[in-house]
């Protein structure tokens, strides 16, 4: 199948391991995945800060780069939601009806990663092994922009060896919000502090989510406070198998067995 990975600009520059894990996992599931290198950014930062003309240029770019692929897989719910959420609106406002049509034609082929796994590939148990205590933060965009519902939980529950701990007040925003985190740094920091506290309360050694932006926020706080909780995109957990064994620097989950 002619499948493209839109890795997102954040993952490209700051979290390449998530992109690599996505490639590993998709290949394991029989997907021939391509990375068109002309890709850059979905434009979310511009869109959410009010800069629509720049968003529009990046939307055109996205459509050009990905138009010929059967599926575009995105390891991020917030970036994954952008084409459906923003591109048509931005194009319509600019009177670019050609782009509106192109976006509408493309959007059904754009998939957030976990949705692609469960709904397109029909996978739930992806053959992963991760014998560590994990808590999962459902990011706001995974709840509301590209609603993935229970898919990440279903995927996580099927991971062998995992010890899944429920995150208290999980549906509350971590305070990232893109430029909100610097424009209203005090409020963002206060929200993040509460989220980080809840993460620590779970006793998990790994915090997982489907958005590295939120993980960067929460992880930045955990790191500042000296908490040894690792943040990992969900796909990095799903990509690991029995052959990989446990992650050496992480404590084993209680009752975990190595094969």
């Amino acid at each position: 199948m002619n499948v493209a990975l839109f890795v997102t600009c954040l993952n490209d520059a700051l979290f390449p391991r998530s992109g690599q894990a996505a490639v590993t996992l998709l290949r394991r599931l029989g997907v021939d995945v391509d990375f068109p290198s002309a890709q850059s950014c979905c434009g979310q930062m511009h869109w959410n800060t009010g800069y629509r003309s720049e968003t529009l240029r990046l939307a055109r770019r996205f459509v050009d780069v990905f138009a010929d692929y059967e599926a575009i897989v995105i390891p991020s719910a917030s970036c994954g939601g952008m084409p459906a959420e923003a591109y048509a609106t931005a194009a319509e406002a600019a009177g670019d009806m050609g782009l509106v049509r192109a976006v509408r034609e493309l959007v059904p082929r754009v998939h957030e990663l976990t949705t692609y796994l469960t709904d397109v590939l029909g996978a739930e148990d992806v053959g992963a092994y991760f014998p560590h205590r994990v808590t999962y933060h459902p990011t706001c965009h995974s709840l509301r922009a590209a609603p993935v519902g229970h898919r990440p939980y279903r995927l996580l529950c099927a991971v062998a060896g995992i010890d899944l701990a429920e995150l208290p007040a999980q549906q509350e925003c971590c305070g990232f919000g893109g430029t909100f985190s610097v424009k209203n740094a005090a409020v963002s920091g206060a929200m993040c502090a509460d989220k980080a506290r809840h993460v620590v309360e779970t006793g998990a050694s790994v915090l997982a989510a489907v958005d590295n932006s939120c993980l960067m926020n929460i992880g930045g706080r955990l790191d500042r406070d000296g908490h040894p909780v690792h943040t990992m995109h969900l796909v990095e957990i799903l990509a690991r198998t029995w052959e990989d064994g446990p992650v050496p620097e992480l404590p084993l989950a209680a009752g975990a067995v190595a094969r």
Partner: protein
Amino acid sequence: MSRTFVGWPAFPRAAAAATQDMQLRSNVTRATGTIRGKRAKLVTERPDWEDLRDSAAALKDEVLAHLDRYLLQAEEQVTAAGGTVHWARDAAEANRIVTELVRATGEREIVKVKSMLTEEIGLDNALEAAGISARETDLAAAIVQLGDDLPSHVVVPALHRNRGEIRDVFVREMGRHGRPAPQGLTDEPAQLAEAARLHLREKFLKAKVAVSGANFLVAETGTVVVVESEGNGRMCLTLADTLISVVGLEKAVPTWRDLEVFLQLLARNATGERMAPYTTTFTGVTPGDGPQRFHLVLVDNGRTRALADRVGRQALRCIRCGACMNICPVYERTGGHAYGSVYPGPIGAILNPLLKGPDDPQTASLPYASSLCGACNEVCPVRIRFTDVLLKLRHEVAEGDAKVKHPVEKAALDAVGAVMEHPAAWNAAVRAAGRVGPLMPRKRLPGPLRGWTDTRNVPEIPKESFRTWWKRTDGGTK
């Protein structure tokens, strides 16, 4: 003069101060958490909840699309029922009308209830300038007024105060404005309520003029509807000789049958009650029963401005239930005052710029007072898409007609955008990031980004980006 939000600092500054006030945060967290819990439980009782929300949104849109027709119909009905209707374009005109109406009665002490709109237009200070004292009788509004405080929530204006603080205000202030607080008053809710009852009853029995707001205005009969918990509103609405209701243009609903939809939604969503304890409806004047003079002041004050905004007009559907602020993680950490308006929280973040225009730094800062988490969208009884309106308003500031601009941010985002648009430039930038990564301070970012590192570290920038890895390993195959 009582305190006002005039000259209030922009949201980031006011909010930063509020996040440091641990007493305030604990009060707001406890209160919003309690209301959220009650609401969530009652909403699940209604299998038709989503249908009710659909109906409410559609009804409000119908009213907003034909506002002229419904308001004229209401005027006709109110007049036929013996009332008088006044139209006010803005705050100054509304204040002048109300002041003149009170002055004509010769009264110097009046009571007020249930009106955020009179707070919006600054009526109390206008009356005071004319030598008229207006005392609030809604309990939470009375607490705010006694404490020379400001409202912080649309349903519970004193939400930011706890029992102990309220007791202190009662003990200190009640005597200066009428009947003093009873000796030995504690912070027990029953005792506080009794103290308020005794203090306020004296006002109700003396006042000849009452000013009220309204939750709804039923156009087909010209009926004003006030929904409340305490019965203080009903005292005002029934005991005074002259009643002046100050009502925003957007409060109209077409018929009594439509009202039914809103009454099913409002109390559940606002306070987590199946029905509001007091729903008072009154139409014009009934000889020998209730106020014998009734004035309805219909106020625009920016509402037609908001109506002209294709995306923003949905904010005028708002029925002031406060659910958006109860669920908002930003509001929970700042309280309402940070928004610098009687309308705080997500609705304040959109309604204030829509009513006033985002032309001063305080108003223009409000659309950014959100992480865009979208929790408000899900609880709104009239399905306001807050995040759509916030984004539209941000666009107005960033690239539209708003007078407030953010030149540094625009330059930065333009530059980033230009790089992202060109494959070669973006490739080079991502590669360069890996090289400068190790040099970057992880605990202290410079310039406008330093807010991040006040409480958070920056992640390490990996030496090899994804695209470099892909190229080097031929897509991870070698």
